[in-house]
């Protein structure tokens, strides 16, 4: 029986499954080796602000994967909902925390409605959800442009003098300044609430994770889930946490370059942690179990009496609403709304980040999302540097990273199909 617990896979298979992650780690390390110009301080400043900006969006992809819908490129629609909310807030010059809460509320309503209809579409395009989500994103972009370029100004009367509106009085400008929070705007509305130095955050996170590991270990033991515990993984993860904490303490004591890293926003961090906790908790409810049942076998779930269609719609709605909030967090950090471009790449980049973390079209976890966000953004920062030092042109590195984004998605989808075919291949005996 013991062998059933841990069926060990060959090293080759492990490498193949994690090929994308491995390529990214190698690439980032290679970047550090060839480019001497990147300072540790710059790298971590860039990285941490990118992580806080993007994690929420990447995390919003997990539930649809677990519910068997695959990678939800449709979060673009959520992002658009978020931008609609931000535009309304900006138009009426709402700002600060109250303005942000208003944005969250409006975005949730719009996104829930859109998510409902996308969910219905996914049920009609069963088995082709991913391509459907990609195309419905483009379609929604058309509606979005119609709304922002034509309806505003022609159907809804707006004053041409408003800073958001184009000078001819029809449509919203290409870029809209969100106004710093100190002047009553939305820019940094979350960040500016409370900030702490990077190393402090690092120490807190490391110790927090360590505490979580230990609590979970003893909790499992006490509640009779002893079989879930594995000593080896506890030791490995615990050591990693301690090492991280050690690095933070070392930096604080020696006042190394890490102290130069930009401060990190606490509230954004708490929101991201909150979403992680939410994702864990919801998977422990009846609804979460239904997500998993439907995700693993729609047929068996249907036969067992689970309302498959409804469950899938709920999963899509949750994902869309979370993406809308994620986009709001993203935009308040950027400070400007790139009205017609800010959302277009969100789907691709978030999906790529999740895949880089080791997820696939049928499995995803919080670890995949967070780890993927870190690695993916590290690659993003390093690409221009590599281009600069190898070819003397930063732009080559930028081309390369676009190539990497699509390459990652391509490889992941290819591996998925390959694995599915391998399972269904007919053989003699």
């Amino acid at each position, binding site marked *: 029986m013991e062998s059933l617990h841990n069926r060990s896979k060959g090293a080759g298979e492990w490498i193949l499954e994690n090929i994308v992650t491995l390529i990214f780690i190698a690439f980032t390390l290679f970047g550090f080796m060839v480019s001497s110009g990147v300072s540790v301080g710059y790298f971590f400043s860039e990285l941490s602000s990118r992580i806080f900006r993007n994690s929420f969006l990447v995390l919003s992809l997990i539930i649809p994967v677990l519910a068997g819908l695959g990678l939800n490129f449709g979060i673009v629609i959520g992002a658009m909902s978020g931008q609609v909310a931000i535009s309304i807030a900006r138009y009426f010059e709402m700002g600060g925390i109250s303005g942000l809460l208003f944005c969250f509320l409006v975005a949730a309503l719009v996104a829930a409605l859109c998510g409902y209809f996308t969910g219905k579409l996914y049920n009609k395009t069963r088995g082709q959800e991913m391509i459907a989500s990609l195309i419905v994103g483009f379609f929604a972009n058309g509606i979005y442009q119609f709304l922002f370029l034509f309806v505003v100004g022609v159907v809804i009367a707006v004053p041409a003098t408003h800073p958001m509106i184009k000078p001819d009085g029809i449509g919203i400008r290409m870029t809209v300044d969100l106004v710093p929070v100190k002047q009553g705007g939305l820019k940094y509305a979350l960040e500016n609430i409370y900030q702490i130095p990077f190393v402090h955050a690092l120490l807190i996170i490391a110790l927090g994770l360590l505490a979580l590991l230990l609590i979970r270990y003893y909790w499992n033991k006490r509640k009779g*889930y002893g079989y879930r515990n594995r000593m080896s993984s506890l030791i490995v993860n615990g050591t990693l946490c301690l090492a991280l904490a050690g690095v933070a303490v070392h930096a604080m004591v020696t006042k190394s370059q890490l102290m130069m890293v930009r401060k990190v926003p606490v509230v954004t961090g708490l929101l991201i942690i909150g979403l992680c906790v939410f994702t864990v*908790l919801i998977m422990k*409810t*009846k609804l979460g179990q239904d997500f998993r049942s439907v995700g693993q*076998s729609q047929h068996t779930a249907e036969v067992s009496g689970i309302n498959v269609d409804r469950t899938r719609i709920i999963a899509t709605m949750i994902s869309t609403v979370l993406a809308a909030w994620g986009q709001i967090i993203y935009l308040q950090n950027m400070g400007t709304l790139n009205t017609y471009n800010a959302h277009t790449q969100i789907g691709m980049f978030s999906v790529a980040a999740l895949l880089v973390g080791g997820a696939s079209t049928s499995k995803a976890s919080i670890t995949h999302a967070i780890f993927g966000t870190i690695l993916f953004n590290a690659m993003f920062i390093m690409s221009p540097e590599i281009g600069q030092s190898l070819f003397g042109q930063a732009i080559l590195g930028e081309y390369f990273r676009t190539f990497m984004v699509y390459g990652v998605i391509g490889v992941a989808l290819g591996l998925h199909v390959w694995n599915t075919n391998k399972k269904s291949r007919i053989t003699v*005996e």
Partner: protein
Amino acid sequence: MSESLLQFKNVSKNYYGNSVLTGINFDVKEGEIHALIGENGAGKSTLMNILFGMPVITSTGGYEGDVLIDGKKISFKSPHEAMYAGIGMVHQEFMLIPGFSITENIKINREITTPNVVSRVLGKRLETLDMVTMNADARKALDKLDMGVDEFIMVAGLPVGHMQFVEIAREIDKTGIKILVFDEPTAVLTESEAQNLLAAVKRLAAKGIGIIFISHRLDEIVTVADRVTVLRDGELVATKEIKDTNAVEIAALMIGRKVAISRVQSETRKVSDEIMMSIRDLHVGMPGEMVKGIDLEIKKGEIVGIGGLAGQGKLGIANGVMGTYPSRGEVLFNGKRLNLDDPHATIASGIGFVSEDRKGVGLLLNESIELNIAFTAMQVGNKFLKKSGPFRFQDDAAIRRHALKMIKDLDIRCESPLQHAGALSGGNQQKVCVARALTQDPIFLFVSEPTRGIDIGAKKLILDLLLKLNEEFGMTIVMTSSELAELRSICDRIVIVCEGKVEGVLSPDASDADFGLMMSGSRVKKAEDSPKERVSHV
């Protein structure tokens, strides 16, 4: 053992005027194991579909007669109603989620939950799972089956026998389970797993659960059941106490004699002693029809029948030789070895194939009859082609001439050779398939299920046609069919396939009991389990 838990009273069912069940009276008592046996299409699954209120019954006008549980008349509209009334089914193919633990599978959609802060506001679906109680319940169900495996391990890596037990555990975990239906439960199990299962079935019956045991393995039925009911062609042939009967009698009842078999054969036909095709240790990976090592020799000029129950592998033989499914083994045709991966060469060597999958493999439904007839010959035999420089064009005039001849010879009823094959009736489609096989000028013909889905009149025509081909042109024919009667009407000998192997060869006028016993694989127990093939997990 006295009270009738479940009763069918005079139950009939027809699909669009086609009667599939007539006047069935059947009952199961508390704690009884009642075996149900019959050939494919005898009506076993229709009977179970009625019991479970499957949509296929309700959407086709329901059924006649009464079904009673505990003396009360019931009529389920969906399988869930049946489930709540205490009826469970152990499926032949497992309804398990491989990525779930045993507990999660047992408790699927019946999870035990505890309320939390959020669920009080937003509804029951957000209640937290109580894995501890769920595990305990699963443990209890597994213990009832004497199954030692841990309840929290994944189903994915389990041996097949354990999966079957998980299915059973799921059914008995449902509170108030009264009747449990086992549909061919041992079909996928090894010998020792099957023994365990039968023991478990007996234990469940001892707890007072009524059990309907559908199986074609006569020896199992004789060992495990209390009573047996035999169905044939939608009619109840007999219900007998096991102690009053034996395997031979049940087998004879199951086969019966449907129609008087008229064997009219002209004296002129001759079967030579020359072996035309010899098959050695053929394995075919056809899903649902696995062939696991067949040896067969076919003489020139013979008509050989291949019979057996569905799913035993009879259809896999022709498909394996023709290369439509992956296969392994040695096939010699006229002394030359065939490459089983190369259907093109096999067809070119003079072997024709009329597939059982008429609409899928057999015909191009949206193409004309004439193209269907000429298609393979054009692809393989380079017939009906005109050469013009580097290009080759199809010779429309020649195709038309040939198609018209075939339509006349085989009496294909159609409007014109340009009519789409999909628009024809089943019998005429089959004739087009035969015409296409004949166009390749084969010397050897595989015909699979030639009369499936064809009305009686057309059946006779097809069989006569095969006989004519054999008599007049000396064509060697291997005919695979689920209908024993038609095999017995034209074949020289009938090979019975069971569990992917040749169970035995019978002459067409062997007794019903011989056929029944052989098809059930419960003939004389001889070297039943070759240990190489069967890996025991328990």
